[in-house]
């Protein structure tokens, strides 16, 4: 390996993992560009951690190859790979103090003078003056957030080509998690090392990563920038797992650059470019729209809605006020439980449970999905992790 900077991409080619008859990861091709913050997102058991462990060398792939830059590392043991891991629940060595934990990797590679580098790391992860003065505390004497920082420092001090993070924030409480998300993002920008982050938390993945790969059942469902995945989900799993989607079963009336569909009498339009499948006239299509894209007006104000917008009538079944917005559940003949989020700019007193309403939105904000898939895919898991 002569030049690590020219191409330090992580390339997975056809890797899969079987345990007996169980397939944890189906053959998978993935290229993680050098210097990017990449997230593997999915529910537990989707194969994301197995994929990460195959990059680390802790798991040998059943088929396929792992390459770091030009070098193939598929059969290299973990201690010979320029890759380091921040483990779930940190796995700090309980019999060593902070200093020795951080210096472990350097010492194993025969580096004698470690003090300066350890101090630099303590600064980088902002373990604080406290830790600088007392690096001889044992891991169990630290708070969860501090342990997290030690785990990151212990891995980063080795300047790996890739840093792997296995649910690193899972053990922290919500507030600390938010703070550490920003911290990790800052550190990544500062050191410029490729970060591969495994998480089940879609918000975490979207906040931190440049590119997110959504995994389900051992396969990558969709890969892209967070906004791209959110606006243009290509499967029902992605639509439901990333945020919330209203999915409406409809039949295709006409095709062209705009597709028109009908659902229980309502005619809805969407751009053909936003369909993940080729709609055929007379065929079925799942039409999706995000709850925050929908506007809500009382039925008597229907005439105020601009022409050309998608419209559905319904009745408010439930509303919950959550400060910045109000979340409504709408009972509609088109779809039994439509969710609508309305910003609390000017609250309309007529929008109360039981009121007849009209929902309308820009057709551009509508996406189309193949109807031949489970409409509820990804919903259970969201509730579980919330």
């Amino acid at each position, binding site marked *: 390996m002569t030049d690590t900077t020219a191409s330090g991409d992580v390339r997975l080619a056809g890797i899969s993992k079987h345990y007996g008859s169980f397939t944890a990861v189906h053959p998978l091709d993935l290229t993680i560009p050098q210097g990017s913050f990449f997230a593997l997102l999915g529910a537990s058991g989707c194969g994301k951690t197995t994929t990460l462990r195959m990059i*680390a060398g802790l798991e040998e792939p059943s088929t396929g190859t792992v390459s770091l830059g030009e070098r193939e590392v598929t059969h290299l043991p973990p201690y010979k790979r320029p890759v380091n891991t921040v483990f779930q629940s940190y796995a700090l*060595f309980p019999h060593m103090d902070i200093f020795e934990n951080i210096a472990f990797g350097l010492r194993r590679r025969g580096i004698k003078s470690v003090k300066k580098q350890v101090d630099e790391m303590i600064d980088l992860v902002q373990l604080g003056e406290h830790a600088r003065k007392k690096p001889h505390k044992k891991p169990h004497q630290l708070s969860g957030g501090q342990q997290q920082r030690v785990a990151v420092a212990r891995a980063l001090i080795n300047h790996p080509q890739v840093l792997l993070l296995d649910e690193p924030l899972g053990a922290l409480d919500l507030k600390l998690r938010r703070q550490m998300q920003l911290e990790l993002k800052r550190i990544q920008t500062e050191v410029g090392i490729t970060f591969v982050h495994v998480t089940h938390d879609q918000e975490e993945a979207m906040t931190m990563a440049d590119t997110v790969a959504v995994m389900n059942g051992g396969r990558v469902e969709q890969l892209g920038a967070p906004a791209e995945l959110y606006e243009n989900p290509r499967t029902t799993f992605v639509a439901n797992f990333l945020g919330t989607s209203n999915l409406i079963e409809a039949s295709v009336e006409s095709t062209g650059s705009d597709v028109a569909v009908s659902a229980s009498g309502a005619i809805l339009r969407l751009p053909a470019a936003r369909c993940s499948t080729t709609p055929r006239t007379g065929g079925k299509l799942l039409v999706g729209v995000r709850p925050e894209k929908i506007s809500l007006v009382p039925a008597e104000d229907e005439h105020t809605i601009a022409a050309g917008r998608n419209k559905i009538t319904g009745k408010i079944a439930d509303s919950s006020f959550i400060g910045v917005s109000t979340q409504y559940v709408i009972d509609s003949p088109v779809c039994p439980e439509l969710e609508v989020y309305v910003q609390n700019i000017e609250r309309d007193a007529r929008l109360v449970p039981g009121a007849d309403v009209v929902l309308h939105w820009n057709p551009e904000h509508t996406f189309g999905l193949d109807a031949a898939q489970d409409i509820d895919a990804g919903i259970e898991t969201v509730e579980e992790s919330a």
Partner: protein
Amino acid sequence: MRWLRRNLVVIAGLGTLAYLILPNVVVTVFSFNNPTGRFNYAWQEFSLDAWKDPCGVADLCGSLALSLQIALWATIGATVLGTAIAFALVRYRFRARGAVNSLIFLPMAMPEIVMAASLLALFLNMGIQLGFWTILIAHVMFCLSFVVAAVKARVLSMDPRLEEAARDLYAGPVQTFLRVTLPIAAPGIAAGALLSFALSFDDFIITNFNSGNTVTFPMFVWGSAQRGTPVQINVIGTAMFVIAVLVVLAGQWAGNRRKKAQPK
């Protein structure tokens, strides 16, 4: 009455402590006795004679040295073997693992006298000369299960991710074992070793059956008790007790010091 109720736990605790310590106190006090007859059972007068000449009784110090030697080797043998067995039982899935898992505790459950007799039969049938080696083999055997029990508990509670983290941080298999696995398992191994030493040092039944002409310290005490008990036995007993207490105190002191260690 209220005072009694409030301090009942303390009183019960002190009572129990006295119950535990009383035998040691008697042994210590009688090590300073100057008995008139052959038996050291009645207090006569204070004397330092026995302390000045602890080896003054024929064969006493020889048997003591032998016991210490056997205890040391039995501890080393049982600790090495037992640690290896414990790791194998926790880490690897092999055929007959379940059987080994329960058979290893057989020496703990079996009456010692039965094991002693059957071991003797075994050694005699195999034509092995009774003595130092038969004692050592027997001691390693019954210490083994205690070491396995102590180490296994420790290895079971160890997070396998720690070793993965070590391998991830450039430690090869040998380094991982020496730097991470062994230090974390060390308290369990030490507990097993201490237990082995104590069990081996004062074992009488199995030793008595399998020793031939060799005499260990417990056997010497038993033998002399038939004909009269020299004060030196109390001296050795007291010395052992004091050494044990000092070792425990030193261990605690070292532990506290490590916790308060200052930056380099």
